[in-house]
């Protein structure tokens, strides 16, 4: 059992302690669910889209402190952005917004980026489906 101290930044701890936009969204425009419980990380991201703009977000995450903080941060970063702008948010941008992540935790930010892409993908698919 490792007892390694985790050098999390104040921002990470802030988002871990008080995660923004937690929960399930009623009638979301798009949902992305990524990760694997066996690996210890699952992220579920909900977006509400109007006129190509993400107007609201929610998330649920099973995972470590960094996984929760990156999910929380990505829900904040994309709010008010157009879908194309949101797609440009990289995992590095999420990590930077949190004041950095320990190297072994960078995969959590990758997961956050994937969850976002997956939610936008889901929304766009629904748009092209015949109603």
């Amino acid at each position, binding site marked *: *059992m*490792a*007892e*390694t101290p*985790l050098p*999390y930044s104040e921002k990470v*701890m802030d988002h*871990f*302690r008080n*995660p923004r936009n*937690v*929960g399930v969204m009623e009638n979301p425009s798009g949902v992305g*669910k990524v990760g694997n*419980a*066996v*690996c*210890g*990380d*699952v*992220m*579920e991201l909900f977006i509400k889209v109007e006129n190509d703009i993400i107007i609201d977000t929610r998330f*649920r*995450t*099973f*995972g*470590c*402190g*960094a*996984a*929760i903080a990156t999910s929380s941060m990505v829900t904040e970063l994309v709010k008010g952005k157009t879908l194309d702008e949101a797609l440009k948010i990289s995992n590095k941008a999420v990590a930077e917004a949190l004041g950095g992540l320990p190297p*072994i935790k960078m*995969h959590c930010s990758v997961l956050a980026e994937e969850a976002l892409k997956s939610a936008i993908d889901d929304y766009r698919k629904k748009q092209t489906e015949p109603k």
Partner: protein
Amino acid sequence: MKTMERIYLDYAATTPCHPEAVKAMQPYFYDKFGNASSIYSFGQEAKAALEESRQRVADFIGARPEEIVFTSGASESNNAALKGVAFALRGKGNRIITSVIEHHAIGEPCKFLAKEGFEIIILPVDKDGLVDPDAVQKALNDKTILVSIMHANNEIGTIQPIAEIGRICREKGVLFHTDAVQAVGHLPTLVSELNVDMLSSSGHKFYGPKGVGFLYIRRGTKIKPLIQGGDQERRFRAGTENVAGIVGLAKAVEIAASEMEAEGKQLIQLRDALIQGILKAVPDSRLNGHPAQRLPNNVNISFAYVEGESMLLNLDLEGIAASTGSACTSSSLEPSSVLLAIGLPAETAHGSIRFTLGKWTARAQVDRVLDIFPKIVAKLRVMSPLYPGDKNG
């Protein structure tokens, strides 16, 4: 902000050094700093302290003083035992038998020895973490040179049937080593009762200082030294002796000899209060490790739908120190191999917390954990996409 009382519940990781041990060590840093190998008085007073300490440790485990080798701790003791026997008995055979739940300080030397051509047999454990003595018996063949099974597991607290495994090995004339890091100073560890040929221990797991431990080597055991150089420790372990550390370890042994029994009884009460309290307050939780054949201070529980590090961080925010079997505090990203070995699915292993209690754990501290911890799990479950919701609500 109000200052918060910090609660340390990670005694299996390390214990505070007992103030009496600190006091006993003090003179050996400056006043009695001599090298125990020197013939003048500075050296001889260090030598006297060293030998008195050796006698005390030997008495404690029912050994002879010349069977005790002081080391830098259990990792060194384990490496010395495994590699020392392997290379001494290479001509006789190449099979070494161990278990799947050993500490890395056994597992990694075994991997090294496997690359050197030894055949390492890794025995499984049952759902409670027990090694089956019959499995040891069946794994023994005429090429077997060593069996190494830990006394008590550091993660799940399961105590192995060491005496029985030892008896089986001795009947076959095969050397038996036990990593007794979690047992020495907490459980009776008389080598004659355990039927062991070698036993590893570390001072900082029972209120001694860090960086010092010992290896018991039964008289007549064929073994080669790991660290070569000077004539210290009967030429088995070169290097100027850590006299202050050894004196501190001996003091910790002396304290354990008088306090361990009563402390064990006290800890079992606290342990069971914590286990029962958590299992009752938190649905979908389970105890890991043997319910009865268990270290007096070990609590290891898995919680479905939540991850260990996030529980650990929330506990830390409340000033409570514990440990987890989750991947997320290790660099490997693999959950605890011990928890997988007892049959937990990986996602459950990720959601495990270990509390280990000790000499200075108070009932009020246990109560505070029982008050705070279920709320932490509930908060994380609400955030978890795996959580199906409150079945009772």
